[in-house]
Structure formats: C-alpha cells, structure tokens
C-alpha cells in the first residue's frame, strides 16, 4: 500500500518549455523530474532550487531515477560520456547534473544504488544523494 508523500511540488511555465514535479516522502527522500528546453524562460537549476527550498530541512536525501530512452537524459548521458572514457561509475555520477546541483545545497554524499548497462552504455542508474 502506498503512503502519501509528506509534500509535493509541481510547477510548469506557461510557455510549456519548463516544468518540474517532485515529492518528499515520509523518510525525507526527494524524487523529482525536471524539464527545461534550451530556450526556456526558466532554467532547470532554478526549478530544482525552488523545489528544494520548498521542501526545506525535511529533505534528507535525493533519489535520482535516471533512465536512458530515445530522448537525451542529461544525467545518464554525462555518466555514459565519462564511463566511456574510463571513469568509474561512482566517480562519473559526481559530475551528473543532479549531483552537481544537489552538492551546492549541501547534499554531498552520493551512492549508486542500482545500475543497468555497462560503462559508456548505462540504461538505468539509481543514485541516492545525502546530506
């Protein structure tokens, strides 16, 4: 049975070029999805920061659910770029979009909790980013 989230945050810009949806569960784990076109009036980083401000100190960790489909995936693409050049996945995730933004907010501990694929070609990566 699902437990209701502690808090939810959803925003879309009227231009339909930027949006975020996120939730904070009762354990303090944030899950979110963000989208911003290159010419969006609102940047993905700003959306992420606003959501995290709304969640406040109740947010203890961020779970990244990164998937590689037909569309570009900014996190998975970065990890694949770096692991394709020989970096370990544990090191590569530190350079991914979500992790670099989270670090600036005090979430510095990153763990890869699930991976599917091989260096340079990961299809699924789940990470946990903690304070």
């Amino acid at each position, binding site marked *: 049975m699902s437990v209701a989230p502690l808090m*939810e945050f959803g925003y*879309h810009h009227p231009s339909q070029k930027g949006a975020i949806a996120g939730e904070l569960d009762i354990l303090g784990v944030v899950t979110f*999805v963000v989208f911003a076109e290159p010419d969006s009036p609102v940047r993905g980083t700003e959306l992420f920061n606003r959501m995290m401000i709304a969640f406040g100190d109740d947010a203890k960790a961020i779970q990244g659910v990164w998937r590689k*489909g037909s569309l570009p995936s900014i996190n998975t693409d970065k990890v694949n770029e770096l692991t394709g050049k020989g970096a370990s996945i544990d090191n590569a995730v530190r350079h991914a979009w979500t992790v670099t933004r989270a670090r600036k907010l005090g979430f510095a501990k990153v763990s890869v909790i699930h991976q599917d694929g091989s260096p340079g070609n990961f299809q699924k990566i789940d990470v946990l980013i903690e304070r």
Partner: protein
Amino acid sequence: MATPIESQPLNEELVAQLRQMASEGAPLERLVDHVQGSLGFAKSFTVPVFPYFCRAFKLPLREVLPLREWIVDRDDREVEDLRAKIREFHVKLTPHTQESPCLLGEKVR
C-alpha cells in the same frame, strides 16, 4: 513580468476523471492524452502529467516515472508494473475511500 515559481495545485476534477476512465478500462495512452488535452499541453510536454497519475492512483512519483520514457518510446515492458498498480488501485478502492485534501505544495502531515 516573470511568473513566480510556486507549486501549483492540481485540477481535482481531472484527477477524478482519470480515476473514472481507468476504472472503465481506458488504456494508458488515453489517460495521458486526456490529461494533456484537458490542460492544453503539447504531447511533448509531459512532466506536469506525472503528478496527476500520482494523485489519481495514490502512487509515489518513482513508480510513475517510467511514463517519461514510455510516452516517447512506447516500450510497454517499462510500464507493466504501472499498469498493474493502476488496476490494483481500482480493485482495492472502496466506497469509503477518502480523497486527500492536500494541494501540491502543502504538507499533509
């Protein structure tokens, strides 16, 4: 003038419609189209659709996220679990089920 970035409430009527459609066996594609069409969103604008599925079927966002790739790829294997959970929701639903009064951005504790 810039639009303030604040959490926006969901359309509860649309949430109820989504539940009703699913209970009548509407396929996933129709559910997604209904949310996007009702809100006037382009098919490529998918992020605001996910909270409607979370609210309608009481699912955590991480269980709804496979829709993100499915909307583009239509790889049905990726949404088998989600489909099952939507079906389960209706099996478990009783007349006493109460809707959460929370809006997006409001704490529910």
